């Protein structure tokens, strides 16, 4: 199973050129989309009452959570888990992807194992990690890392294999030591793929952390969503979910977007 680099496009919203025509269409489109989503939601909240909360109730619940300490405590806990797994999966996946991309034998060894790892359902990783490590922080961290790293590895590998071999020849001919050539020639070529992988790794980490916390943690955003669900407080389920998703979206755009601009300056 290879969720390939074509997914990078899925993380980027279309950015049309700024003409007034285009801007009007964008604003109109956004209004239409939000209005229609709102209409669907309202309809559902009426037809499937009380299982789908009304938008009004949900907004009230969002306000309540935004002013409660418990929400922030859970949020920071979850953010910490995301950050740890995101970093570990990105570093391990990138290192593995580079090794696989550079060497056919390493590829032959790891590729079937990665294919199998990608076919394992995420809850299985979580449950086995809990069995092996108990219900502490380590289990969630290991499960998330195992679930995310193979995706990162696949994205980085295909970029390594598509590298400019001409630059490899150039560095060999000019006798540039291979460790230096790695940092000045190969790594910069991988930057776009590494950024894509980072975006992907981040998105996957925060989406999976909900599953991890729901199954194996007493606290965190995922646990509080699932806890509310058990008590059938659907407005809290939806409110926390929306707040969490929006925050993660902001984080991705803010941090990763800025990083991307900095690292790809030379492309102007």
């Amino acid at each position, binding site marked *: 199973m290879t969720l390939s680099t074509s997914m990078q496009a899925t993380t980027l919203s279309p950015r049309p050129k700024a003409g007034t025509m285009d801007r009007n269409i964008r604003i109109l489109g956004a209004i239409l989309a939000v209005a229609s989503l709102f209409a669907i939601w309202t309809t559902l909240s009426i037809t499937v009452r009380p299982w789908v909360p009304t938008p009004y109730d949900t907004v009230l619940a969002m306000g309540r959570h935004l002013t409660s300490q418990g929400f922030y405590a859970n949020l920071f806990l979850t953010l910490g888990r995301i950050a740890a797994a995101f970093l570990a999966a990105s570093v391990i996946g990138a290192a593995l992807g580079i090794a696989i991309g550079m060497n056919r034998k390493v590829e032959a060894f790891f590729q079937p194992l990665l294919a199998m790892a990608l076919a394992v359902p995420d809850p299985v990783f979580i449950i086995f990690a809990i069995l092996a490590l108990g219900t502490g922080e380590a289990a969630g961290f290991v499960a998330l890392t195992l679930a995310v790293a193979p995706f990162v590895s696949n994205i980085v590998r295909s970029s390594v294999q598509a590298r400019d071999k001409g630059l490899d020849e150039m560095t060999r001919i000019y006798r*540039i030591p291979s460790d230096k050539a790695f940092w000045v020639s190969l790594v910069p070529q991988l930057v776009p793929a590494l950024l894509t992988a980072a975006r992907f790794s981040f998105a996957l980490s925060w989406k999976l952390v909900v599953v991890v916390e729901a199954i194996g943690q007493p606290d965190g955003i995922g646990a509080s969503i699932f806890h509310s669900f058990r008590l059938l407080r659907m407005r809290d389920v939806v409110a926390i979910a929306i707040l969490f998703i929006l925050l993660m979206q902001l984080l991705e755009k803010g941090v990763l977007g800025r990083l991307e601009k900095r690292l790809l300056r030379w492309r102007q």
Partner: protein
Amino acid sequence: MTGTSDTVLKVEGLQVSYGSIPAISSLDFEIKRGEFVAILGPSGCGKSSMLNVISGLLPPTRGVVEVDSRPLYDAGRHAPKLGYVFQAHRLLPWRTVKQNLELVLAASDVPRDQWEDNIDRLLDILHIGQFKNSWPMQLSGGQRQRVSIARALLVEPSYILMDEPLSTLDEVTARSLRQELSGIWARTGATIVFVTHSIREAVYLADRIIILTRGPSTVFENYHVPIARPRAYDDPRIAEVEADIIRRVEHAWGLDPIKQSEVA
């Protein structure tokens, strides 16, 4: 039989094959210090195999490739310094012109306190002094190739290999660069091995042209260009020599199919 001290590159009995497929069957030639030699071959003459071997990227299947009387391939720390101007510029696009040049200098024997002066001098010779701090993407194709030539000269190489460096440029740019190339060669005394498909280019630039046969290749002829320098690209004598070479190689390189049937 060792080459005399002014022999830079010695190729003897060179054979290159991939599995059982021969690319070069038997190649012998020598390049002397300060020579400008063109290597001319038909397409499919094993040109890239030869380039890979005489640049030290690929070991010879059989035979000797020596630079300054030492084997070239896998020479380790004592490996001779080479310059290479590729068909594409092969500059690192995320490094400025200066940073690209410093990269190869760091791997050369040139002492650090001379880097700045050497870079400035060569960029001036190549008329790209004002682009020292530009990124490669900001330059034109011809300017990038100038940087690439500067890079090759900077490392004070035993010789410089040029693999059709002008073939991707438009003819006007190629012409001016071609003209400058002979000037640069005269000023720096560099040893240049220039691989090309263009007979006229070879005649205009080189003292001597090594003509190869169609692959698996051998040397067909060592042709000395009998025209004094400086030369003009439109000089009728160049056209005459070009015609002479075409006459000689027509049989060796194979006629096109229609003519062959006429001969039969």
